[in-house]
């Protein structure tokens, strides 16, 4: 991970730790999930190609003669009722809106461009690269020895340009984004170099040897796409008989690569609390254990979402003082193992 405006960088190396993380294509995840669902088909029913069109919420418990469960009406007319409705329907969650849960949201002035790229030469492709350009971070995530996935967060205009330009220009833009030093200033470079010497006095092993990112040869034709970026956080994750997970509860900038991990974390936490509640014979829609899930996840998610937001803003500028701040910060973080390890563990959780 490195800055476009200085030489500062941070390297997380595999020797210090066990597997840092895994990058898995979405299709592969979907396939694995489908297999698991088939294995529990006697207990889990999936209605593919279906859509909910209306939700009817239960009235307060002590005054109802109507069903105390949530009623769901599907587009094809079928009706379902449930003790617990889980909203996993993304950042524009209908469940959240219908449940009248307020959402704190903010649109970034950025869109992300994604694509599948082919490397110039086959390599031991096991390094994820991210460079913070003033317009936004560009990241290369390894898929195989010959291919990587691109996630380039940039201004809406630039994103549209990238999507419409021909494939050769697109590849050139990517390579230049990773290699160009156009944003460096002498001042920052000297200040950075001076800090680096200071660190090496205190800690001789200092910073690691610099590896180089791969260069791109071509892009997979149909794979280019873009989507707008924003930040969002639901004020409540749960209500009586309702729980929100994943992007329905929180939406984060891709720069930390944590969006889907937060969702997975939500799933694990909710499953744990529901399982404990079921073993106690509790009504699964009861707020008592749903609130435990909410507290646990909000505590974890809010700090990460806020930190990501701060990083995004910090790296969106070329202003010298802020560049210097983040340069020194990154260099320091790179030189001091405990901070790095803790950062990393936070990210991978």
């Amino acid at each position, binding site marked *: 991970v490195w800055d476009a405006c200085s030489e500062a960088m941070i390297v997380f190396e595999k020797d210090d730790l066990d597997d840092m993380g895994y990058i898995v294509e979405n299709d592969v995840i979907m396939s694995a999930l489908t297999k698991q669902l088939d294995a529990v088909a006697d207990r889990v029913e999936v209605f593919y190609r279906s859509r909910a069109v209306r939700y009817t919420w239960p009235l*307060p418990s*002590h005054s109802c003669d109507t069903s105390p469960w949530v009623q769901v009406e599907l587009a094809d007319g079928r009706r379902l009722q449930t003790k617990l409705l889980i909203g996993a329907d993304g950042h524009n969650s209908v469940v959240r809106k219908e449940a009248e849960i307020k959402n704190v949201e903010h649109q970034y002035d950025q869109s992300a461009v994604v694509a599948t790229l082919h490397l110039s030469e086959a390599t031991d492709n096991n390094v994820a690269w991210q460079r913070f350009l003033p317009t936004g971070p560009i990241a290369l995530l390894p898929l195989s020895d010959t291919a990587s996935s691109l996630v380039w967060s940039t201004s809406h205009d630039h994103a549209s340009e990238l999507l419409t330009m021909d494939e050769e220009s697109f590849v050139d833009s990517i390579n230049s984004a990773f290699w160009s030093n156009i944003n460096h200033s002498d001042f920052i470079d000297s200040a950075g170099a001076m800090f680096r010497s200071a660190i090496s006095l205190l800690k001789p092993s200092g910073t690691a040897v610099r590896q180089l990112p791969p260069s791109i040869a071509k892009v997979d034709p149909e794979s280019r796409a873009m989507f707008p970026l924003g930040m969002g956080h639901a004020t409540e994750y749960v209500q009586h008989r309702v729980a929100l997970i994943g992007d329905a509860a929180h939406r984060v900038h891709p720069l930390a690569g944590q969006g889907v991990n937060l969702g997975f974390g939500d799933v694990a936490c909710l499953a744990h609390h529901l399982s404990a509640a079921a073993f*106690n014979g509790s*009504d699964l829609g009861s707020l008592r254990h749903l609130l435990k899930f909410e507290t646990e996840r909000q505590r974890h998610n809010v700090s990460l979402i806020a930190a990501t937001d701060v990083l995004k803003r910090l790296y969106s500028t070329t202003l010298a003082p802020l560049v210097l701040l983040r340069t020194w910060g990154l260099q320091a973080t790179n030189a001091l193992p405990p901070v790095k390890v803790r950062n990393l563990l936070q990210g991978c959780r």
Partner: protein
Amino acid sequence: LSLFRFTVKRPFSTSHSSVDSKEVKKFQLLAHKWWDEEGEYAALHSMNDIRVPFIRDTLLSMSSNYHLGNPLSGIKILDVGCGGGLLSEPLGRLGASVTGIDPVEDNIRTADRHKSFDPVLDKRIQYKSSSLEEIVEESMETFDVIVASEVVEHVADLEMFIKCCSQVLKPEGSLFITTINKTQLSYVLGIVVAEKIMGIVPEGTHEWEKFVPPEELERILESNGFSVKTVNGMLYNPLSGSWGWMESTSLNYAVHAVKSGAWGQSHPTDAPSETDIQQRSATAGTAS
């Protein structure tokens, strides 16, 4: 206060049943409030967090069968003084066949209506407006387990209540009781603070006179063919609204007792009390 100085002996009871009509009236007024988890009965709702695991784990440790997903499957439970069904429902969800009885008809009505929306519970739980004595004749040695949670501090004749429990319980069946000790502390915290000051329990729910010290409960149990296996103190934290276990039984406590087996020591009072009960229930005007 002289209240604390004399040892209270349970007054000789002339009632024909263990049901106290004053108690019945008290609960009638709140019959529709059972299922508001944050309402008058909030503390009872959160008590499920410790009493259900207590019952579940004790029963699991005593049996070798385990049905994944339905740990209490195949077990017949009698919930005496079931109220609105707060404890019957979780036990039903865990797989047990539950019969819930309560002398207050409105409670049974509330309980019946609440379980009717859940097709699984509807089949697993049966409610009946009745006192314990009234079902003895038709339910001799029928149940594997009896739970009497927050009940014995409301009954008129504890000795008879326990005798009836013994009669409807199968040999080696389990009896679970949760109740309140009779101490200075339970007066201050259980009545003054809980009822009058903090409103944790609706005012007038409890009478300190009827609280039962664990020693007395144990004595009555042991003299009626039960072997007391566990006595645990319970504590309610009003700030968090949650219950926990504690060493001391000076406030709330839970008891697990087991009825002696078919070949266990036969009790000299068994035969007479049986006919006694039958006579009484024949003439009993039930207090509901």
